[in-house]
């Protein structure tokens, strides 16, 4: 009888995005219908179950996510081959909204994962996008080619920043925001990446009174809003997020970029 259990899927394709980042493609109807910003709980058999943003959806029932090798679970995912099995449930969570107008996207690392399907919908809707992609150094970049291809469809621009100047402009992604915001009327800023970056993006957005939507991360267990492990302020990242808008972000500003909880629920500094 029907219930929302993990659905076992086969890895159909593995794409090398960088030395530490790969995308896994699989067939799953619900995931292929995910909206930009939604995530999926990925069961790595015998290892763990972790949340992954859906980084790719296709009309023919295919979907994919993009994983950076971090700890045991993500490394196990990273090591999957074509034909490997994994379980997925979802897609879950609030997606990006109001996907139209002249927008700015600020992302870094695998934070770009949910921003890629977003930018694809944006260009379909003929939005102009200023996409700022930041990184520490040149090796870390993913999705740049895909972003260029997508953004070429409208009057859009890509700005690359690195902290060491090895690629694009030297500096932080957020440094690239102000010049644009001073010159142009931006309808919405979308962001995902390290939380300190998100916090900075929020501050700049507030300064310029531009609304923002940010996708956040916290430890997830249930993914459906009952266990409380993903709490941030009065919100659950899995259910009230992962995409949060400006009013909500302002409510949780004390926690944002400051602290999060570990698997035991203990508070830890970010």
């Amino acid at each position, binding site marked *: 009888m029907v219930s929302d259990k993990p659905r076992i899927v086969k890895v159909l394709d593995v794409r090398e995005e960088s030395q530490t980042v790969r995308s896994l493609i699989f067939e799953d109807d619900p995931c292929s219908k995910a909206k930009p910003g939604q995530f999926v709980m990925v*069961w790595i058999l015998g290892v*763990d179950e972790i949340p992954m943003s859906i980084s790719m959806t296709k009309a023919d029932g295919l979907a994919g996510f993009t994983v950076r090798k971090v700890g045991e679970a993500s490394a196990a995912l990273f090591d999957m081959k074509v034909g490997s099995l994994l379980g997925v449930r979802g897609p879950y969570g609030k997606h990006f909204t109001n996907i139209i107008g002249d927008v700015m996207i600020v992302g870094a690392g695998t934070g770009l994962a949910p921003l890629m399907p977003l930018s694809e919908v944006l260009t379909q809707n003929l939005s102009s996008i200023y996409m700022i992609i930041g990184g520490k150094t040149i090796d870390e970049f993913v999705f740049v080619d895909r972003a260029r291809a997508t953004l070429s469809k409208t009057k859009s621009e890509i700005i690359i920043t690195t902290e060491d100047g090895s690629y694009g402009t030297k500096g932080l992604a957020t440094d690239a925001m102000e010049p644009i915001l001073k010159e142009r009327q931006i309808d919405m800023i979308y962001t995902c990446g390290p939380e300190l970056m998100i916090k900075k993006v929020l501050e700049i957005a507030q300064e310029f009174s531009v609304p923002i939507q940010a996708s956040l991360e916290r430890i997830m267990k249930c993914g459906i809003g009952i266990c409380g492990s993903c709490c941030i302020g009065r919100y659950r990242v899995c259910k009230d997020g992962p995409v949060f808008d400006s009013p909500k972000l302002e409510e949780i500003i004390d926690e944002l970029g400051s602290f999060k909880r570990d698997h*035991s629920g203990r508070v830890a500094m970010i």
Partner: protein
Amino acid sequence: MQEPDLSIEISSLKMESPLMLASGILGTSIDLLRRVFEAGAGAVVTKSVGYEQRTGYNNPTIVEVYGGYLNAIGLSNPGIKEFHKELSRSKIDDLPLVVSLFGADPLEFREMISLLDELEVKAYELNISCPHVKGFGAEVCQDSKLVGEIIEAVKTETQKPVFVKLSPNVTDIVHTAKLAEDTGADALTVANTFRAMAIDIETGRPILANKIGGLSGPAIKPIAVRCVYEIYQNVDIPIIGCGGVVDWEDAIEFFLAGATAIQIGTGIAYEGLSVFEKIKQGVKDYLIVKGKRSVREIVGLAHGFR
């Protein structure tokens, strides 16, 4: 007709509404607990806290099954000292906050309570019934002597109401209920989840990392209602019904069986946080139709039919 009165008292804990948040659901932070309170809960119970920090089990820790959810979170908790810090820096005086505690022996319980008791905690719920963690929980509940000792120890340590949450994974829950009453429990929470499991047939694997977890949700409601009904006939302290409440009809069923209050956990997965307001409205309407002025008037009405 006047609005029916939904307020109840369990020992010294006064509640505006008889609908409580069950332990382990959203009870990880005071902010979330407050949100649930504001969503209409009469009292909120924290996730169970133990003496030491515990990471809990690996994911998957939760999986849906037909009729409910299985969970094997593994009593993850920050440890009592960390939890005490968190409570200390939060404003909780206006919150009908019940702290759920688990422990292996009377000493652990006493120490935890001695630490927390100075704070504005309104009551304690002793979780001696978690079905999937060895050494705590259900194994405690199955050991009568230990149950009695824990309750007695806790009662000497605090003046605040002490609720004891029972395990339904026992041969005779009425026996444990009576024992809890005799050793000083102020109320009984009936009941915790049922040991259960789900196996993924594609891979042959048990889905939960811990393999076995606790079944909650509508599936267990008829069993939980029976537990409340049987206990009501045998003890005099208030019963807090818990297990599978999703709609107001479920809540009424528990009240009629003998519950003074009910707890909602998995119901939130089905109905979201609005479950509290929805059930409150349904209960009110029911009381109006039945001509009752207070929810207290319907507690135990299912008894006494031949």
